[in-house]
């Protein structure tokens, strides 16, 4: 069908005085495939909408060019208007003659305005409609990790009516926090009961994820338990947690009977009887500045517990008290009021053995004096690290981790819980050093995101916005390797041929694949090579 184009020029209420609109119109009307060129005043308002509507309904055009203000706000609105008028929004091309032309330069800008419009016209000639279609997606979710985070995520998903499978590599659910008395363990017990009762949560214990293929709406996950399992899920939420390591490198003495971890301290605190109550306990943390939230919270909570349960003398040695989480400043003040002594150092203290006890030699920066303290028990700094298996899993998923090895690249667009692969999410401490408030925000965020991307029923996608031509594709795998969103797969088209197929649901429309394809087999409608070259060629031809 031959191109028949309608052009609308908006003069923004007549205010774009440095553009000679009649001259622009004159130049455009001379072109072959232009049906009309209208000068209007307020395309963004109702009267503008009416002007566009009446023209499109009476003229038989199949391309629309609008020269007005920035497409940043207008693209969607004009597109929706066209759709209402039964014209595919993909046939619309915009020229920014206001913010990036009239307003940006002194003097007459008629020539530039005409060129920008010619660029849009050149592109419009080559535009093709992009249809939308409904696709059925699997909206079952896999939650990997049966600790606090994983369990809470499963429960919240299930409450929104989403079928969930919870996979845990240990034989039981509960994770690390199960061992903590009080608030956490009671919460966890309650959650385990609720999960067992829930009809739409399936539990798989003693099982691990060994492979993930596919894309959002259709992830094929291989798991190994007592046998091999192959299942399909719409989205995957990783809540694989963390591990702690006593900061052995910074301690000249090995952890032992008198130098213990926070976990060991909690065990002692929870023990029904205690052989010898330690009179003096020292906590040391913040030797490095990495991942301080976790050790700060553990120290404050445990220091208070020691005071309350044993009444020992408690000293906390740290460089800076890390209070940047909700409620921590108050906890810090409470600890001080309860008699916990905080000593701040600028230089790391010296730790040595002293006749069965531990001697800490530190320079207290507030007093400006050297303090030598001999403790019965020293609780060492623990580093928060990615859980065992994170590196393996991330390369399995082909997902980048941050500089410390935690999930999720340090890219602000991914926060809070997304990854570069649509449909794969990370919640909790597996993605870094969070406190409980932030972990809970993670959990509800991921539930919202899953619900948004995989609503009940069908999902509407653009059918072929970015497409690899099976005739030209030679299956070199470049696009598959290069796609940052892992949205491309190889599919079999007949008995002999495999070609690349781009999932419209997973594609984030960056065009990196289209640029890199050596065979130029990938067409990105709206930003194809011809459509870009047409804009280049239109410059200067006036």
């Amino acid at each position, binding site marked *: 069908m031959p191109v028949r184009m309608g052009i609308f020029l908006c003069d923004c209420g007549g205010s774009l005085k440095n553009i000679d609109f009649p001259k622009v119109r004159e130049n455009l009307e001379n072109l072959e495939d232009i049906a009309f060129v209208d000068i209007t005043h307020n395309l963004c308002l109702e009267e503008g909408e009416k002007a566009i509507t009446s023209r499109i309904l009476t003229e038989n055009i199949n391309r629309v060019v609008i020269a007005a203000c920035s497409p940043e706000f207008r693209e969607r609105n004009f597109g929706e208007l066209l759709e209402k008028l039964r014209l595919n929004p993909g046939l619309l091309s915009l020229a920014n003659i206001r*913010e*990036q032309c009239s307003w940006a330069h002194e003097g007459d800008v008629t020539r530039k305005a005409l060129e920008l419009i010619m660029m849009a016209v050149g592109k419009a000639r080559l535009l093709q409609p992009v249809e939308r279609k409904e696709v059925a997606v699997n909206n079952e979710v896999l939650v990997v990790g049966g600790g606090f985070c994983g369990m809470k995520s499963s429960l919240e998903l299930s409450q929104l009516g989403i079928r969930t499978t919870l996979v845990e590599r240990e034989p039981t659910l509960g994770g690390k926090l199960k061992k903590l008395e009080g608030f956490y363990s009671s919460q966890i017990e309650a959650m385990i009961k609720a999960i067992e009762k829930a009809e739409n949560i399936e539990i798989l214990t003693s099982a691990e994820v060994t492979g993930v293929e596919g894309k959002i709406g259709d992830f094929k996950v291989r798991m190994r338990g007592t046998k091999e399992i192959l299942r399909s899920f719409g989205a995957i939420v990783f809540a694989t947690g963390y591990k702690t390591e006593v900061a052995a490198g910074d301690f000249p003495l090995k952890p032992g009977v008198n130098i213990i971890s926070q976990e060991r301290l909690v065990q002692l605190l929870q023990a029904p009887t205690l052989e010898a109550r330690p009179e003096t306990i020292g906590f040391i943390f913040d030797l490095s500045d990495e991942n301080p939230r976790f050790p700060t919270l553990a120290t404050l909570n445990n220091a208070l517990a020691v005071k309350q349960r044993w009444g020992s003398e408690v000293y906390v040695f740290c460089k800076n008290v890390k209070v940047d989480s909700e409620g921590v400043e108050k906890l810090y003040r409470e600890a001080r009021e309860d008699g916990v002594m905080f000593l701040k150092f600028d230089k790391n203290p010296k730790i040595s053995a002293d006749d069965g006890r531990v001697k800490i030699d530190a320079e207290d920066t507030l007093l400006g004096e050297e303090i030598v303290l001999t403790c019965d028990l020293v609780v060492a700094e623990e580093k928060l690290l990615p859980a065992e298996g994170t590196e393996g899993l991330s390369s399995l998923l082909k997902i980048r981790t941050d500089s410390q090895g935690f999930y999720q690249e340090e*890219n602000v*667009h991914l926060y809070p819980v997304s990854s570069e692969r649509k449909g794969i999410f990370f919640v909790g401490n597996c993605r870094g050093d969070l406190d409980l408030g932030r972990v809970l925000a993670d959990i509800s965020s991921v539930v919202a995101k899953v619900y948004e991307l995989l609503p009940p029923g069908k999902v509407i996608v653009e059918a072929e916005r970015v497409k690899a031509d099976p005739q030209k594709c030679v299956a070199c795998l470049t696009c598959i390797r290069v796609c940052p969103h892992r949205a491309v797969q190889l599919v079999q088209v007949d008995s002999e041929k495999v070609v690349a197929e781009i999932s419209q649901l997973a594609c984030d429309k*960056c065009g*990196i694949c289209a640029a890199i394809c050596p065979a130029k087999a990938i067409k990105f409608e709206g*930003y194809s090579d011809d459509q870009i*070259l047409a804009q*280049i060629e239109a410059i200067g031809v006036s």
Partner: protein
Amino acid sequence: MNGEIIAFCCEHSAYAAADVVGKQGLHYPEKLRVIRVPCAGRVDIIHMLKALEEGAAAVLVLGCEDGLCQHLTGNVRAKERVKYSETLLTEVGIDGGRVGMFNLAANAPHKFIKIINEVNDRIKERERENDSR
């Protein structure tokens, strides 16, 4: 074309910054022509070379700051392609400085203006050098 500056602008960063510049009423050389792209990584070497072939004075790719690209590697790939174009141009005896990659964020209109003005100054200097020969 006749000495225009072609700028491929990522819609998330440079294109948005250029809009802000216009709204602030700040000006830059009229010879700039912006081509909007969804990501700097969409820009291919052929696009840059074609623009120069058509007579552009300079071709720029403007993308997100290092570490900010929504598509993780788009700005990195664009930089590699610009560098490669530079070497191609130098090999055939054309000033490699006529292509360039720059990074900015959507809320940095001043950086946009600084980049365009600096490129324009370099173009004028090259013209002066050519004239004096």
